[in-house]
């Protein structure tokens, strides 16, 4: 059951929504149990066999959190925290990385365990909880509040990765199921924008991506333009897909009374890779920064160590996305570029050049960052290195450069061919207008939070969007619902992680 499927839109969501409003009138405690029940049903719908794991994980971490809380300041609290982290990472390792590890080491046996949905998300979320309780940032919540915090269905499957400080206080204040006009309209608008982004933009651009990557992985020789088209289209697809999920999660959260943290802030407008990670999957970046980068020393131990830390953290971030060397390499590339950014910034600071940059320079930086991110996406999307390198060969012109036929005055040679910019039959031309529209949206349009007027600061007051925005969002809602009828709904890309 996906957010963009009819079963969710017309059955699950209305039942949960009406249910929580009715139950809350009776008792706020009941509304918590109602959401837990709904979330478990939602999770179980994707695979009942993994429900025991989620239940076990919640029970274990809640128990550990309570025990750590009782022993804060005591050495045994540290032992309990270590035990908790080992348990969580152990479960993640068994289900997600065991086969990757054994095959990488050359062993023939594999466990062949199916990957529990959202395991990376709820594992990280609970590790952060244990650390925060240990640091005294959070007092252990009631079991129902904790279970809602972990299993809350709007964000359970693909984030945002929430911290207990962001959710538990809202639950304690009794916000769950407490519907305000502001939250309702912002939630509905965000959900509509997200639904449109997923159904019309991400899934719409998909047919442009798949044949190009398929061709490159099966030995096809793409032209330079085709390869860039495929890689850029994937960058757009994953952005619309994941940010759509995040918008819908935020929207659903608000409809149920809970404000979730934002996860995207126009990442393709970033002017360098560090900036990109401040805007892309923000909650993961913050998790990696606060629970990995800073404990490793962050940038306090000199520029070399900062470079190393950034590389290591991003390498693990790549591994978090999937058990494959292509993901590791993708993370490594980002890590190296983040490290390089730190170096250039330190160099600029030494020379006293810390003033703002002119517009043209920002534009060039934005374009270069986009080009790098697109380049790196090739590893993220490709099934293996062979496919990725074949694609990169075409992107940098090593497979020859295809030019328009009209320029072919003296025929073709080894470097230049005059067969047209897109000579192969793998590019779906009818999607090119959508591709161009997508580029315009990601570079020049305000993001969904800005459109609905939702501030990033979780404590800022909510303001109802204007009637014109509501009208615009309802147009998008119609298109999103319309596409849900087409029987061509595709899973969210981040469901795999």
């Amino acid at each position: 059951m996906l957010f963009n499927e009819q079963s969710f839109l017309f059955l699950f969501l209305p039942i949960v929504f009406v249910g929580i409003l009715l139950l809350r009138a009776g008792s706020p405690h009941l509304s918590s149990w109602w959401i837990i029940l709904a979330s478990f049903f939602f999770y179980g719908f994707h695979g009942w066999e993994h429900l025991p794991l989620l239940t076990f994980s919640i029970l274990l971490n809640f128990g550990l959190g309570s025990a750590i809380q009782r022993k804060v300041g005591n050495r045994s609290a540290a032992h309990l925290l270590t035990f908790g982290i080992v348990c969580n990472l152990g479960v993640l390792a068994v289900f997600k990385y065991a086969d990757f590890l054994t095959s990488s080491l050359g062993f023939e046996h594999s466990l062949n365990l199916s990957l529990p949905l959202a395991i990376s998300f709820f594992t990280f979320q609970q590790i952060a909880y244990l650390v925060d309780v240990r640091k005294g940032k959070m007092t252990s919540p009631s079991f129902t509040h904790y279970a809602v915090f972990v299993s809350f269905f709007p964000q359970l499957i693909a984030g945002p990765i929430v911290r207990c400080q962001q959710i538990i206080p809202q639950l304690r204040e009794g916000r769950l199921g407490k519907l305000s006009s502001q939250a309702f309209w912002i939630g509905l608008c965000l959900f509509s924008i997200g639904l449109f982004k997923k159904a019309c933009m991400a899934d719409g651009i998909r047919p442009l991506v798949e044949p190009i990557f398929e061709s490159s992985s099966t030995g096809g020789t793409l032209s330079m333009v085709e390869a860039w088209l495929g890689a850029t289209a994937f960058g757009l697809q994953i952005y619309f897909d994941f940010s759509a999920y995040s918008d819908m999660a935020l929207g659903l959260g608000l409809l149920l009374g809970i404000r979730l943290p934002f996860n995207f802030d126009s990442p393709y407008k970033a002017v360098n890779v560090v900036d990109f990670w401040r805007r892309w999957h923000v909650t993961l970046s913050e998790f990696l920064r606060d629970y990995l980068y800073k404990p490793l020393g962050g940038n306090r131990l000199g520029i070399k160590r900062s470079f190393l830390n950034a590389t290591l953290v991003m390498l693990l971030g790549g591994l978090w996305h999937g058990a494959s060397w292509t993901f590791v390499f993708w993370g490594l590339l980002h890590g190296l570029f983040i490290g390089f950014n730190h170096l250039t910034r330190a160099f600029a600071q030494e020379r006293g050049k810390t003033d703002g940059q002119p517009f043209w320079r920002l534009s060039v930086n934005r374009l270069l960052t986009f080009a790098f991110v697109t380049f790196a996406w090739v590893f993220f999307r490709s099934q293996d290195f062979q496919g990725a390198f074949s694609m990169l060969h075409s992107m940098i012109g090593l497979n020859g450069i295809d030019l328009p036929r009209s320029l072919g005055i003296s025929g073709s040679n080894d470097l230049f061919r005059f067969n047209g910019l897109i000579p192969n039959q793998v590019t779906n031309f009818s999607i090119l207008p959508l591709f161009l529209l997508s580029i315009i949206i990601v570079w020049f349009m305000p993001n969904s939070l800005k459109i609905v007027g939702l501030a990033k600061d979780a404590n800022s007051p909510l303001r109802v969007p204007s009637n014109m925005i509501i009208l615009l969002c309802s147009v998008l809602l119609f298109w999103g619902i319309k596409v849900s009828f087409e029987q061509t709904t595709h899973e969210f890309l981040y469901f795999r992680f």
Partner: protein
Amino acid sequence: MKVIEIKRSLSLLSGLILAATTWVVSLELISDRPVPNAIFAQSIIERKMEAAEKPGKVLKTLVVGGSNVAFGIDTVRMSRTIGEEFVNFGCIAGIGPEIILSALRPSLSEGDRILFCWEYGLYSFKRRDQNITYLNLLFGPQREIYENYPFLDQVVLSLRLPFGHLRDSLMTHLNPYADPMIYKCSWDFDAGGNVRSNAGVVTSEEELLKKSLDALCTELIVSSEARKTIMDFLGYCRAMNVEVLASWPNLFAHPSYLKNQIPRENIQRIREFWEDLSVPVIGKAEDSMLGSEFFHDTYYHLNTKGVKKRTDLLIEELKPWYAVPGAEG
């Protein structure tokens, strides 16, 4: 409710109405600009209708079905052997019984005969679950059928039609370099409506064994829509004094059909369905199930050898119904 909330609700409603109206108007505007898929499917229907138009008052038998008929029965051979005119009216099963039967009606004359050899999936036809070719036709050359559907079906089908339909329609008809008619079917049809060319990739026995036909292996329930469509058509045939017979589709003889109970029950259900409607059923379903050596590119499409075998079998089964020398009945 406060006035401001009413205004917001009206904004929401206006947006939904505006978007829905835009979609409906867009579909209306492109209804005479069919997409390539619809041009292709419609051209097959038209070729079949052309084949069914016989000069003078010649009585004919139309063999009706999907591609199992198109790529499975040689009506020229049947005409030659039985001595009466036979027409291959095998179209595409995916377009559903309504479109096939609607195209068939104008081709019928008093005294004609119809022989149904329907694919198993056609019996469970449901408008709202149909494929893209069906939708492309409904919002193109077969729009009249769509306009006669109940309102709710119209709404669901218009929502189900992919946005790509609009895009493909515009791209096809705005493209200055290609005439949309290039998408017409270029198969080699003979005068009897038979297809003499099949460009599909030849299927091996291994491929055929990999998958059995879902429509036969899961409990088959004749849908109310299929039943109503057929009953209406039978009423029309009675009024036209057209005799209707039913037979079976040619199909790869997957071992699971004979081993399992469900396919046998489904076959019995189909037989009872026709018999309840007073339509005689000719032959046995099992006889139309042939070995892999007779198939070309799918479990429904026969090769030349298969077409001959299947046609000869059908001729034998039909002899009692026609005044064939030496035949009983």
